[in-house]
């Protein structure tokens, strides 16, 4: 008897192809598990009825030897991806009744490969947050919570991380604007890969910050991430920022014996960093050395300015991207006799506090008299940050850093202090600003018995090296994957 709980995506694909398990079995298993673990609040919507029907169709294709690469595999989708005729909320009241008439390119790519929508996962409202606590649907829970302590799964892709770590999804999609895939992956002990900006189409993903948003996989293993990304990625004519590159083959290219030059940025070793993280960092370096990789110290001098740069740019873009939520064509409306009141009431009631805060910050930094001092300044610092990476990558193939400065924190401990919350992303935002690919891989457990992830950053469109390096860590760390 196969224990479905133990298998990862790669294994499931194999078992389905060998007809050792059926899609219907797999889908039913995950639906049942998801129902049983409602307390994780990982899903906003479970596709219960439809998923079974689709599994039956997949099983027919498998029987006819017509299986596609992800045939019959249930996938959890962050509720920021528009899914045709299926509720798509961005975890906001303002979209709480929205059923798009279209399918995002990335999810369409998954369905075209035979995958099945398992459900839509929880997130911080409009992906703005690092703890999943800003969701209109309530916070998702980190499955590693124990001893009556409730830990956040991280954010914004907290629901996806919680679902994969909690065994109620075999794989999930996330989106990462400043760390929203990598940080929750680190907090929940799973793999989270943010591809190069332009690798996955943004078409049909609810926009937060257009120059930063990027979709990526959240999985149990590095191999699974490669399998997912091969399907999710691809050029899309409907997205003017989508890269026109050849079809990827990350999974087949994935080799552990690549001799890589590993960069260690001086600036990431700050005083606040816990000793245990520094220890894991050393351990990671040992893993690389063991695999004939060379460790090189590098300089990323503008690291300390990345967070401020990120908050200015992402808020500015968000303030504009979220102007379309006006209660006129779709979504929540608070009725009013007068149009300006309709806008203001709809948006005041429809958006949560953090979203409003960022819209206001974004409006401020773009407004007359402040644009040059804040927005333009941030765009220039962004150029310097990009330049730092360009210079570093003349010396190394990938860069190795902690994903987040801490392990998962307890619910409610940071939500009232925006800046404290923003600091969670200190190691992930520079990469987002530069549009580089990066992955978070679990390396071990903290003294609190919570997962810790480390980040591997690559050159633009060099996900191959990122995945190879990640696999070295994964293989050597031999991280205990189950949270229970």
């Amino acid at each position, binding site marked *: 008897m196969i224990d479905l709980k133990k298998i990862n995506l790669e294994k499931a694909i194999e078992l389905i192809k060998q007809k050792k398990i059926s899609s219907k079995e797999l889908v039913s298993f995950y639906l049942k598990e998801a129902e049983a673990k409602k307390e994780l609040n990982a899903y906003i919507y479970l596709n219960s009825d439809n998923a079974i029907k689709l599994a039956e169709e997949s099983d027919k294709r498998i029987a006819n030897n017509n299986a596609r690469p992800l045939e019959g595999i249930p996938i959890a989708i962050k509720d920021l991806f528009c899914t045709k005729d299926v509720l798509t909320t961005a975890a906001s009241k303002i979209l709480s009744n929205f059923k798009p008439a279209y399918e995002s390119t990335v999810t369409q790519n998954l369905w075209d490969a035979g995958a099945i929508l398992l459900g839509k996962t929880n997130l911080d409202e409009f992906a703005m947050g690092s703890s999943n606590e800003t969701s209109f649907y309530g916070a998702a829970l980190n499955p590693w919570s124990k001893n009556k302590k409730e830990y956040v799964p991280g954010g914004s892709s907290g629901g996806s991380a919680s679902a994969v770590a909690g065994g109620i999804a075999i794989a999930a999609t996330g989106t990462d604007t400043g760390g929203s895939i990598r940080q929750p992956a680190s907090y929940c002990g799973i793999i989270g890969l943010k591809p190069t900006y332009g690798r996955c189409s943004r078409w049909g993903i609810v926009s937060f910050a257009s120059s930063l948003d990027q979709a990526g996989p959240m999985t149990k293993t590095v191999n699974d991430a490669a399998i997912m990304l091969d399907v999710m990625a691809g050029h899309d004519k409907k997205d003017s920022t989508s890269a026109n590159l050849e079809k990827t083959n990350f999974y087949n290219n994935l080799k552990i014996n690549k001799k890589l030059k590993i960069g260690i940025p001086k600036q990431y070793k700050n005083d606040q960093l816990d000793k245990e993280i520094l220890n894991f960092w050393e351990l990671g370096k040992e893993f690389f050395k063991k695999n004939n990789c060379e460790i090189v110290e590098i300089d990323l001098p503008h690291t300390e300015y990345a967070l*401020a740069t990120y908050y*200015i740019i992402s808020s500015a873009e968000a*303030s504009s991207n979220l102007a379309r939520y006006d209660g006129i064509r779709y979504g929540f*409306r608070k009725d009013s006799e007068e149009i300006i009141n309709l806008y203001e009431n709809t948006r005041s009631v429809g958006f949560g506090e953090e979203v409003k805060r960022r819209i*206001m*910050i974004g409006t401020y930094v773009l407004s007359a008299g402040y644009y040059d001092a804040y927005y333009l300044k941030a765009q*220039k*610092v962004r150029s310097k940050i*990009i330049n730092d990476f360009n210079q570093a990558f003349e010396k190394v193939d990938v860069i190795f850093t902690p994903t987040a400065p801490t392990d998962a924190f307890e619910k409610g401990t940071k939500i009232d202090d925006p*800046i404290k919350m923003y600091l969670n992303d200190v190691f992930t935002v520079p990469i987002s600003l530069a549009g580089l690919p990066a992955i978070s891989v679990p390396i071990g457990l903290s003294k609190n018995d919570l997962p810790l992830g480390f980040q591997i950053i690559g050159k633009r469109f060099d996900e191959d090296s990122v995945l190879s390096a990640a696999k070295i860590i994964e293989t050597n760390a031999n991280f205990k994957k189950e949270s229970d």
Partner: protein
Amino acid sequence: MDIDKKLVKKIANLSKINIEEKNVDKFAKELSNIISWVEKLNEVDTKNISPTTNPSDIKIPFRKDEIKDGKIKDKILKNAPEHKGGYFIVPKVIE
């Protein structure tokens, strides 16, 4: 930079977000804190540095001038809070 109540109200007006009078102070303080925090960027010398809007170096892709879309009125209107006769309906707008 301190954001005062007047500026908060201006930003709220531009953002079309209603802030209750009793919360204006709170917002002013929060925004001021965040803005003071981002002013760290003033330390960076950005003379002769050109700004980055998007990290990709993609050339803008062109579309052919063809009619391949539209005629989906039902899809356009299906999520509308109020529509009638094919139009979206809003309270009377005065020009």
